[in-house]
């Protein structure tokens, strides 16, 4: 049962998340019909699941909620802001009570009944509601009598998979019975269609079952057959000789037994009172309702796989890619065209296999962004600030575990931005800024890293205050001269908090030091930039979980390196002399000035004026920088392996890869190279 419960909870959580994003879309566009349908469907599934697991408290709760959306989707009601707020509150409550389905927590209990009364208030707004019932227990009368049942299926009865004999068997199991079959007459064999039902039956059964139970036997058949049920409160009809005589006559004939005749026979049986309940079933025909098919419904088909298996798959794919590289090299050195074809096919397949298997662990960052949308909305209400939330690069993909670990830190940062960063609308107006503040979440790839930025246009961080605080805490000395950036870094020190007043919203013990620790645990880094009254930008850098990348294999002085293809913009051939004689390190490429770094000289190899070099223009944030190498070998799928501790501090190398011939190539992080180079140039300038 534990496994069942775990499945229930996991699914309920998914459903609730789904519900939340649909509701937030509805907030901006209350008439979006497909989303209302989606909301209804999710609630419906949740109700069904909860009741299946006997969690009547939850089922009842969701039932009431569902009633509201049922009315909205049938246009009996409008989706108001009040309803939406109430639903979102109910959603938060549901997230808690799926773990506390008996409302043992007193807070939950109180909340529960408060919400229920609020929900019912809305639900009753349209028209009367139907209370949710878990079980409709029925009281059975235990009087043994004889049922006379006339059962005549329609001719197409068999076409929906029904089997009339099963129903008759079911009746026969209830007690002593007598069945008289009848057949319609088929004049010619050519008219005979085995798909058409030509049989009908008269059934007499002595049982103490209630009329309800007898009807239940025909529950699936009542629309496709004529069913008349008549109850006699006596037994003994089926043993009666007059009856047996009549039954024999009618057997297999098209004509049925006549009710009046049976009544007559029953009357002649001299036992007790023969009161009869006149219960003749009537068959109703109702026109079918046209069902609207919601084509916009999203596919959420997925399966769960243990992460161990995935890891193993990744490892195998990595091995495969390495082996494939050897094969490619071998086929290049051999002149067999057949081998070349095979090798190329394997390369294509392994590339696809790699993409698919690595894509499995990645999820779009969008999923997480949606959660913050809600946070910003709730907080702006609470703080009385007007804030618009913008996301960018939601399609950026990250490993699922990284995204999960990131949620809390990001939540904290956004809270901080909203609480301490963004000013109240009036203050903003005085400063000449738009009334509405902005919090922006931005994600993008760079090199083999993913960057996430949280940008606000609030009042910024006061460098002086941070400095004073840092001195008072003993993090720095009064006479130390530090750059603003260095001072801002104190924010991440344990025990540092600049907010004068700890508000309800942020600053509840979890400080930026915890945020930093969380991100460092993910092998990432965080930095902060801030300008007074212009706002604050926090940048989180995370390693890309992909361990196989598409790279450009290059050669510098006989040593091979890999540059991630994702940063490469364009390649040029330049004269060595042009680079070496250059005094401002700028080259004119396609009529643009591009700064460049000569790796040969940076790596302290011998340089020469003769010949040409290849210049690879890579993007570095918003800029483009050229990086010169001796020559380009070609595209290469690199399985990036971590490098030993001796290289740990050389962060311009992000890893190493094994080439087809078994030798090793280092994977370069161009972003770091540019950064290092810039520092280097600045230092030289100072000297």
């Amino acid at each position, binding site marked *: 049962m534990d*496994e*069942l419960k775990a*499945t*229930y909870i*996991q*699914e309920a959580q998914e459903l609730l998340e789904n519900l939340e994003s649909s509701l937030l879309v509805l907030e901006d566009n209350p008439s979006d019909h497909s989303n209302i349908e989606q909301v209804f*469907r999710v609630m*419906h*599934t949740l*109700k*069904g*699941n909860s*009741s*299946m*697991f*006997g969690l009547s408290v939850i*089922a009842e709760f969701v039932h009431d909620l569902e009633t509201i959306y049922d009315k909205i989707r049938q246009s009996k009601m409008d989706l108001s802001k009040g309803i939406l707020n109430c639903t979102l509150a109910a959603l938060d409550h549901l997230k808690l009570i799926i773990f506390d389905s008996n409302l043992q927590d007193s807070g939950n209990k109180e909340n529960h009944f408060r919400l229920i009364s609020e929900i019912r208030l809305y639900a009753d707004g349209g028209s009367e509601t139907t209370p949710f019932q*878990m079980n409709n227990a029925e009281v059975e009368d235990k009087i043994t009598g004889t049922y006379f049942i006339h059962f005549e299926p329609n001719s197409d009865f*068999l*076409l*929906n*998979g*029904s*089997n009339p004999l*099963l*129903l008759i068997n*079911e009746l026969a199991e209830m007690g002593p019975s007598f069945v008289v079959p009848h057949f319609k007459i088929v004049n010619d064999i050519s008219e005979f269609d085995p*798909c058409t039902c030509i049989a009908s039956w008269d059934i007499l059964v002595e049982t103490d079952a209630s009329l309800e139970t007898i009807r239940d*036997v025909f*529950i*699936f058949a009542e*629309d*496709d057959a004529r069913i008349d049920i008549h109850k006699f409160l006596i037994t003994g009809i089926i043993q009666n000789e007059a009856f047996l005589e009549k039954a024999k006559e009618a057997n297999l004939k098209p004509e049925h037994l006549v009710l009046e005749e049976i009544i007559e026979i029953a009357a002649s049986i001299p036992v007790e009172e023969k009161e009869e309940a006149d219960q003749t079933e009537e068959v109703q025909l*109702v026109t*079918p*309702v046209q*069902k609207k*098919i*919601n084509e916009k*419904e*999203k*596919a*959420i*088909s997925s399966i769960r796989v243990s992460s161990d298996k995935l890891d193993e798959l990744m490892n195998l794919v990595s091995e495969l890619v390495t082996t494939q590289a050897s094969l490619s090299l071998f086929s290049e050195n051999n002149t067999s065209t057949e081998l070349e074809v095979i090798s190329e096919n394997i390369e294509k397949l392994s590339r696809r296999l790699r993409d698919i298997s690595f894509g499995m662990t990645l999820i779009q960052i969008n999923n997480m962004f949606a959660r913050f949308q809600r946070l910003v909305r709730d907080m702006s209400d609470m703080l009385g600030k007007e804030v618009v939330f913008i996301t960018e690069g939601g399609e950026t993909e990250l490993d699922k575990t990284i995204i999960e670990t990131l949620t809390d830190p990001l939540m904290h940062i956004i809270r901080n931005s909203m609480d301490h960063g963004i000013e109240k609308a009036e203050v903003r107006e005085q400063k000449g800024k738009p009334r509405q503040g902005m919090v922006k979440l931005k994600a993008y790839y760079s090199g083999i890293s993913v960057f996430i930025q949280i940008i606000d246009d609030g009042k910024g961080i006061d460098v002086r205050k941070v400095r004073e605080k840092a001195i008072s805490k003993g993090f720095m000395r009064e006479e130390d001269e530090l750059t603003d950036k260095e001072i801002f870094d104190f924010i991440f020190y344990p025990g540092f908090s600049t907010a004068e007043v700890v508000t309800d919203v942020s600053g509840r013990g979890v400080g930026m030091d915890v945020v930093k620790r969380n991100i460092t645990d993910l092998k990432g880094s965080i930095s902060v930039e801030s300008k007074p009254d212009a706002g604050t930008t926090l940048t989180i850098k995370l390693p890309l979980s992909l361990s196989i990348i598409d790279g450009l294999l290059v050669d510098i002085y006989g040593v091979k390196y890999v540059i991630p293809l994702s940063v490469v913009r364009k390649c040029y051939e330049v004269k060595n002399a042009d680079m070496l004689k250059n005094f401002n390190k700028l080259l004119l490429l396609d009529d643009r000035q591009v700064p460049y770094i000569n790796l040969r000289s940076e790596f302290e190899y011998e340089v020469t004026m003769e010949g040409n070099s290849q210049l690879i223009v890579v993007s570095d944030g918003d800029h483009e920088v050229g990086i010169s190498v001796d020559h380009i070998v070609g595209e290469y799928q690199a399985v990036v392996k971590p490098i030993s501790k001796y290289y740990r501090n050389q962060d311009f190398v992000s890893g190493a890869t094994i080439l087809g011939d078994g030798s090793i190539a280092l994977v370069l992080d161009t972003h770091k190279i540019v950064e290092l180079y810039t520092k280097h140039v600045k230092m030289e300038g100072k000297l």
Partner: protein
Amino acid sequence: MEKNILIVDDSESIRLVVSMGLKEAGYNVVAGINGADGLRLLNENKVDLIISDLNMPVMDGITFLKEVRKQDKFKFLPLLILTTESQESKKLEAKQAGATGWIIKPFVKDKLLAVVKKVLV
């Protein structure tokens, strides 16, 4: 002979509960996550009975059962609808589309088995 039952429901919990109940009673169970998946499984397995949800993404229950009935070989295959909607209109609609019967959620195992027995020879 063992009977094979195909369950089609988008909710993993429901699939689990139904298949556990049926497996305990000695039936073989295959499970699909929506109508389209159900159709695929139906053609890949020998199926004696289908139990399908109505509200499903990609292909809902009504469309699914119409698709099933379109194929001659499944004309007489018993097909039960699994639904919380006890409203007459839904049941009728399903009947019109070719459903043999229905099971109303919530149900207990005994009820499920009783209904299955009702339609499965």
